[in-house]
């Protein structure tokens, strides 16, 4: 060791680290850290109400006072305080977000618990939350399962033809979700090849994706599985290459069935990778948004990300406050999803030291 000892302990002094890390650190602080803070601030403001004034109008029959919008004053106010008026947690609890008052009202007014749930799930935020969670809940496990089966299956074919097969398998993953969902949508739409044939088969000319909420949800979930499975496949496939041979061979000699071998040798070996894929897939699924545009499914399926998008592309005035409040709550959702992983990493980090 001798002369090398201090180097091996910490190869890079703090000052060098700082200069190497500065550019990327600055980029992340300015364009990921600050925007989150900016979103937080915006969520406490709401767009200005229109300024109104009383106009007294007199005609031979007498005078009437009417209230009209003062456009000039409104513009002036908007320019003076572009962020809007301070609203505190007002946006968070309004009808389009947590809807506290509405829920209280429903609780007191509805007779059965079912009716209450029904009412609540019709509120925009809860509707979107439920779709987002349903999507995550159905897509993530199926992605893991399908990815694993494809990996096992491809792993069993001759090495020579695997290359092209892998290429075909990863295609759904490398296109952007908007394009992927459009390509599927054009097939299953009532005028597309699959949609038209299902209509004929069922003998129902009105059967289409848009005709039922359940069908739309199922389609988007199937799309999600189609789009994300290749990722799980690739990771599992690579992990399968590292499974040690000896225990497998020993198991075969001992007469273990194929299923037993997978359950007791292969799965335990690739377990850390399964958690990794599940986490990544969960994070990606939670931000589901582009397929809703691709499938033009806004009517029956809205996700949290879609709600934010919808506020930001609002025609008249961009609803910064509303979008920001939904964003903050989405971030809280992500934090809840990530918490178990972070806690685990923290514990491992503690014990490693």
């Amino acid at each position, binding site marked *: 060791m001798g002369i*090398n000892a201090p180097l091996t302990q910490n190869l*890079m002094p703090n000052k060098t680290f700082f200069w190497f890390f500065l550019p990327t650190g600055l980029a992340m602080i300015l364009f990921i850290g600050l925007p989150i803070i*900016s979103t937080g601030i915006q969520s406490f403001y709401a767009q200005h109400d229109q300024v109104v004034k009383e106009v007294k109008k007199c005609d031979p029959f007498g005078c009437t006072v009417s209230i009209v919008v003062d456009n000039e004053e409104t513009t002036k106010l908007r320019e003076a305080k572009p962020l809007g008026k301070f609203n505190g947690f007002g946006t968070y609890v309004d009808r389009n977000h947590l809807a506290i008052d509405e829920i209280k009202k429903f609780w007191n007014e509805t007779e059965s618990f079912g009716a209450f749930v029904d009412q609540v799930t019709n509120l925009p935020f809860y509707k979107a939350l439920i779709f987002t969670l349903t999507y995550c809940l159905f897509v993530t496990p199926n992605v893991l399962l399908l990815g694993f089966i494809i990996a096992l*299956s491809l792993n069993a074919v001759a090495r020579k033809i695997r290359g092209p*097969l892998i290429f075909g398998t990863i295609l759904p993953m490398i*296109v952007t979700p908007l394009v992927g969902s459009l390509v599927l949508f054009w097939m299953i739409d009532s*005028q597309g090849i699959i949609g038209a*044939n299902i209509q004929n088969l069922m003998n129902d000319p009105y059967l289409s994706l848009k005709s039922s909420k359940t069908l739309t949800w199922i389609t988007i979930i199937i799309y999600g599985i189609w789009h994300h499975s290749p990722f799980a496949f690739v990771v599992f496939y690579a992990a399968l290459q590292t499974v040690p041979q000896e225990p497998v061979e020993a198991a075969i000699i001992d007469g273990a069935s194929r299923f037993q071998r997978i359950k007791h040798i292969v799965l335990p070996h690739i377990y850390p990778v399964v958690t990794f894929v599940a986490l990544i897939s969960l994070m990606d699924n939670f931000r589901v948004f582009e397929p809703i545009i691709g499938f033009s499914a806004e009517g029956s399926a809205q996700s*949290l990300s879609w709600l934010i998008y919808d506020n930001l592309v609002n025609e008249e005035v961009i609803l910064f406050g509303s979008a920001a409040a939904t964003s903050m709550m989405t971030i809280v959702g992500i934090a809840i999803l990530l918490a178990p992983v972070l806690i685990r990493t923290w514990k491992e980090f503690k014990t490693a030291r």
Partner: protein
Amino acid sequence: MDYGLDRKSTSLKTFNTIFIIVWLLIACFPFIWTFWGSFKVRADFFSRSDWWYAISAFNTLIETGGKFTTDAYTQAWTEGEFWKASKNTIIVTVFVVSISLFLGTLGAYALSRSTERYAFWILIAALIFRAMPHITLVSGYLFPFFQLQIWGILPTTIVVLVAINQPFTLWLLYSFFKTVPKELDESALIDGCSYFQAFRHIIMPVMWPGVITAGLFSLMLAYNDFTVTALLLNQENHTMVPKIQSYLGTNQHEGNLMWAVSAVVSATAPLFMLVMFFQRQVISGLTAGAVKG
């Protein structure tokens, strides 16, 4: 897992083959179908009366006199100004990839060589940043960008995409740098190199596979992005993906849906070719973080 001992029964083999064929059909057929349909007229590809028209090209024959037509492509690229969108995509992609790699290699190298506690926390922070839905970040950008009057232009979008891309690039390159033995830089430092010289002349030359992989992923992010480009660019500067969406929105025009179809094919083809060429790197990138756990 080619075990000499492991004999598969014929029925299992057949089942496996059928499964793979079915899966590949599900995975690839939509793309093949869209490619095929992009050379038809709308009445054929989106046929109300008979889906077989898409194959027999019934209306395409009537409308254009041939079984295949490239009308959708020519119109989308000229009249639909798809050429402008692809030009913008190229600009955005080139800049995002080069800046991402520059920042990412420096940062990831530092992270991989530091044993300080903060290096660990930076990686965790990057993981959290990676999890942020892009739309929540965009809702943070819009207002300040309007105020600073930098909304709508390409440079803003490029910087934003670079930043959004950093967490993933850092993690990916970090796992690659970890595989380069520390003894390499140590010997260079003892020989009197500065850290930057060691990085530039000793480490980077052996890092090319990792850099190519990270570059490919930055490219895919920049090329495929919809959320950021659709909301941060004005109509004039739209890249390909938001352009495709804008064709969908104006459905009244007869030709526009076919513009979208041909634009989807035009945008997807280069990506597929790239991935075909760099398949090995894509797969090593996806697994780099994973296999190590």
